[in-house]
């Protein structure tokens, strides 16, 4: 026992020693610092521009309008729904792509990532051809259930899932891939069935990736514009989300557009910063 007490006392000291030898340099050299500053400015300047032009005094009134309130409500509902659906479907997709070898796997992997590189308008059009009332799947769906997805809130959610779920698949697949499968095997030898292994080992161990996936899909769905517009249209109260409302307001009421943009910037930034501190640093 004594030698273990000894070594635990030694352990943190060793860690300190290591961090001292690979200490981060205090400042990046100029050839890094200059392009990095320009790059960061590209991110920061638009946000600053928005903050500088924001109609702070009229903010409450602007955000209290019917158009703003309905867009806020719709965006909240559709982005959260899209994130939840992406979670429920995306994790099994990532699992299948990561853990099973089958013919056509690389084709499927490409297909899953397609929405990330496709212009969202094209994605929306594709959704329309497939799920529109006269579409490949939409037509029999309508005949059978009377359900019409285009130009409905369901359509907004579907468009969000389509563009955002690849991010969930990517992050979760990355997490699964870097998970040492010996942990799951150890759990099996301890008598854990597949469900117990999943619940008590795999999911907790890839939790950071899953949370990152939720944050990214939610943010992507919140900002979705092109596919929503094409597939679901721009109907106030039904399919007009925040980005669409901003687009419309830019033509008619610039201050309202600024106020709505501000809401999106602040909410998104808050969520991303909070998650980054909480999860990504600890990885």
């Amino acid at each position, binding site marked *: *026992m*004594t*030698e*273990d007490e*000894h*070594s*635990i006392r*030694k*352990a943190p000291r060793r860690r300190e020693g290591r961090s001292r030898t690979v200490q981060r340099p205090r400042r990046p050299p100029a050839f890094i610092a200059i392009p990095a500053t320009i790059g960061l400015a590209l991110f920061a300047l638009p946000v600053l521009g928005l903050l500088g032009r924001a109609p702070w005094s009229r903010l409450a009134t602007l955000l209290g309008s019917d158009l703003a309130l309905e867009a806020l409500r719709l965006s909240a509902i559709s982005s959260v729904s899209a994130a939840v659906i992406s979670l429920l479907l995306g994790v099994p997709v990532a699992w299948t792509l990561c853990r099973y070898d089958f013919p056509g796997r690389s084709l499927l992997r490409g297909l899953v990532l397609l929405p990330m590189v496709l212009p969202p308008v094209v994605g929306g059009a594709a959704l329309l051809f497939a799920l529109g009332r006269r579409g490949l799947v939409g037509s029999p769906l309508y005949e059978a259930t009377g359900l019409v997805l285009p130009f409905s809130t369901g359509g907004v959610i579907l468009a969000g899932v389509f563009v955002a779920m690849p991010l969930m698949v990517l992050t979760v697949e990355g997490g699964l891939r870097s998970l*040492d499968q*010996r*942990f799951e*095997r*150890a*759990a*099996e*030898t*301890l*008598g*854990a*069935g597949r469900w*117990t292994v999943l619940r*008590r*080992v795999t999911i*907790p*161990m890839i*939790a950071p990736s899953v949370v990152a996936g939720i944050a990214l899909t939610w943010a992507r769905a919140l900002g979705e514009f092109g596919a929503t517009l094409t597939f679901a249209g721009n109907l106030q109260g039904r399919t007009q989300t925040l980005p669409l409302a901003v687009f419309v307001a830019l033509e008619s009421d610039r201050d309202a557009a600024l106020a709505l943009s501000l809401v999106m910037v602040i909410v998104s930034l808050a969520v991303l910063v909070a998650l980054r501190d909480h999860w990504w640093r600890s990885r």
Partner: protein
Amino acid sequence: MRTGLDSRLVMRREGFHLDVALGIDPGQTVALLGPNGAGKTTVVGALAGLLPLDGGYVRLGGRVLEDAATGTLVGPAERRIGVMFQDGVLFPHLSALENVAFGLRSRRVPRREARRRAAGWLEAVGLGALSDRRPGRLSGGQRQRVALARALITEPSMLLLDEPFSALDVSSRAGLRRLLQDHLAGFPGPSLLITHDPTEAFLLADRLVVLENGSVAQEGSADQIRLRPASPYAADLAGVNLLVGAASGKVLTIGNHQLVVPEAASGRIIATIHPRAISIHLDRPGGSPRNSWPTRIERIDHHADRVRVQTGPPLPVTAEITPDAQTGLNLAPGSEVWLSVKATEIQVDAG
């Protein structure tokens, strides 16, 4: 053998073929030794049910766990084989207590009961005070103790220890070895210790199995392998000189002979000296005179490209030299010679 482990493991992988017959009696510990890539960890995976067999069978305590001929296959969760994995493989997101309780919780033991028994096991491996710590905040030796408690708590029918010492420094090695000795002595089922360290194998196992290139090169007691090593690797590990004695400061006393070592130690020790680290001289050598002593050659064995020389009192050891050196020194049984060994070539473990 019927009540212990009875197995024949046949696995074919690209570029690798494993065919091993392995039997272990209840209460017996077998050490599986072999160079890297010999298939040691594959044997663990096969016995634990993590890697399916291409041929052969696994029977444990009269129960058929796997039989390639009939297609019988009991999954790892139902085999009741406790595995102590290389590097522990503790769940990083669970505390030491939750790690140990995991096997009971998986078998639907109520949480309170599982935690109570896990706390008892942590106490038994000397970690009662650290039960709330996660593996990241435990030392290597402590992690292996948790891994042992985690493997034993489910009262497995067999114990597999995959290189339990490989990640440890010398000081925590001795403590874990004593702990393993205690628990293996009280363990009713067969145990398999995977290692590449002959010291551990000799100290912990009743019988040695040498695995090379996927098949058993030799098996038997340490003495049997020492006398008739069947391969260069077996000769290498069996020829290692293990000397039990006592340390006081930098001086080891073995029998009535003394050796000087570079680092101070105290109490019972095991000194390991590789045969190639011992030089043979015809006259008293210069240099570091304290670790040289006169003796008489008792026996000379020839193995392919090397010659093993066994010497008599005051410190019987095996030295290894080249055939050229033997001819040059004109050595034969009965020759009076001087032996010398550098202090830095003597590995000291607490015994």
